[in-house]
């Protein structure tokens, strides 16, 4: 398991500021470069889990398809959580599904990232008020890195979310962190 300080923090804390700063820059030139390289490789190869529950799944498909082509950013889908880096929670999570979402997240290897896509995953969305069986935000189940508003978000918004996540990944400190 790689040291990933931002993970495990409660939802809502800004992920970027969670890692302690590298103490002395001149002493960590190598570390800094290694961090840069590792983060670059991680952000450039975000394989997402093919996990779509509802409406947002269609926009997720369209974002991966020809016009928006997420493959340009190195994001391809994998069917199994073991080979995915990024979980795009696209759609409504019901109470019956909640346990499965948690399990899928646990099955993913570190470092892993989560994007909550669309209103349902953000807050429960349209089903927040009157539905008795919808989880009111996927961050109640698993830590979320980026929230994308929209119902469903346009494919561009999804790509924007992935670019935002890439920026967050680039700021992570993997080595040289004093525990």
């Amino acid at each position, binding site marked *: 398991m790689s040291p990933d300080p931002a993970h495990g923090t409660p939802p809502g804390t800004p992920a970027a500021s969670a890692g302690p700063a590298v103490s002395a820059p001149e002493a960590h030139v190598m570390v800094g470069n290694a961090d840069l390289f590792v983060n670059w490789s991680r952000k450039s190869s975000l394989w997402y889990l093919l996990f779509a529950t509802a409406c947002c799944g269609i926009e997720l498909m369209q974002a991966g398809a020809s016009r928006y082509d997420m493959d340009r950013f*190195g994001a391809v889908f994998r069917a199994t959580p073991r080979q995915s880096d990024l979980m795009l929670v696209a759609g409504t999570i019901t109470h019956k599904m909640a346990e499965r979402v948690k399990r899928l997240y646990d099955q993913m290897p570190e470092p892993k990232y989560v994007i909550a896509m669309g209103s349902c995953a953000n807050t429960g969305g349209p089903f927040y008020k009157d539905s008795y069986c919808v989880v009111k935000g996927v961050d109640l189940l698993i830590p979320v890195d980026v929230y994308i508003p929209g119902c469903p978000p346009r494919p561009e918004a999804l790509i924007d979310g992935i670019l935002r996540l890439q920026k967050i990944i680039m700021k992570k400190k993997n080595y040289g962190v004093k525990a």
Partner: protein
Amino acid sequence: MEALAISLVNAVPLLAGVPLWAVTLLLMVVVAAVILVFALTFEGVGSLVLRKVAGDIQARIGPNRVGPNGMLQFLADGVKLVLKEDLIPANADRLLFKLAPYFAFVGSFAAFVVVPFGVGLIAADLNIGIYYVMAVTSLVVIGVLLAGWSSNNKWALLGGMRAAAQIVSYEIPVGMALIPAVLIAGSLSLQDIVRSQSGLLGIFGWNLFHNPFTFFSFFLYFTAAQAETNQTPFDLPEAESELVSGYNVEYSGIRFGLFFLSEFGDMFIVATLSTACFLGGWNVPFFNAGTLPWIWGNLFSLGVFLAKAFTMVLIMMWVRWTLPRLRVDQLMRMAWKYLVPLTFVNLLGVSLWLLVFKGKGIPAMIASLFG
């Protein structure tokens, strides 16, 4: 290798005191390293090319943001996979689970040893070349089977079982479809097979145009070999839409990476075998690379060989992005009802041809008509 070592010792006086076995060993390590680097680079670039080809065919672009024009995509993928957490499922057979990817990778990598890259560029010109390739690539199935079994996952198990059935069935048509080339060359060595297709007849010296039976042989081999290496439309062991990810469903990180690389390695082996056995290897029309100085001849033939092999790889990708997948019983039916009988008929045809026409192909006969 030993011969090369002897000539090296003779050429370089500095090595006179070193025992011959040490020089040979050193040479072996160097050659293996060179081939490993080549294989890894090819497999990495292959994955990138696969995605680019997919992009082209699917009316999109494919990776273009990582590095200049997406060139570094495979590097990023590789580094990421290496640094990924290495998960082993709780109830997995740990030893076999760890071992399986290496089997698969070694199986595909070891076959590179006998690939005739150029006039003199071959790591080991074994006199059992073709059989060596077929034997070694069968290691892949051991790896896949182990992966399927040891993961303790039913999808993986199904994938492993499918792989075993598939590879065992398709070994026969693959072998039978390659034998015509062996018959014509009279040798199992790949280098000999390539040499038998040389001559100034140009493109017609190739086994592909030797006679009608060899022509069909090539297509039969290509079809069967795609199945043997689990390429679409025969990618049943991995069958993403059925078995989630098939035999490698529980693999993460670099272990998955090895499976991933071995897939491209297999692809390349199929391409090289079809190039060497049917498409004339490093031979080009109206030109004999053997007449050039050693270094230039080798470079030239290397280029020709790689160009042909990469074309074959591209065709495989093209097929991959066009066709749907067969069902497992249809796959078996295709092997036993279509490919096996046809390859046997073909083999019979080629043998008869060679017997009747004394080993001459159609182009040679036409050429002899004109004196």
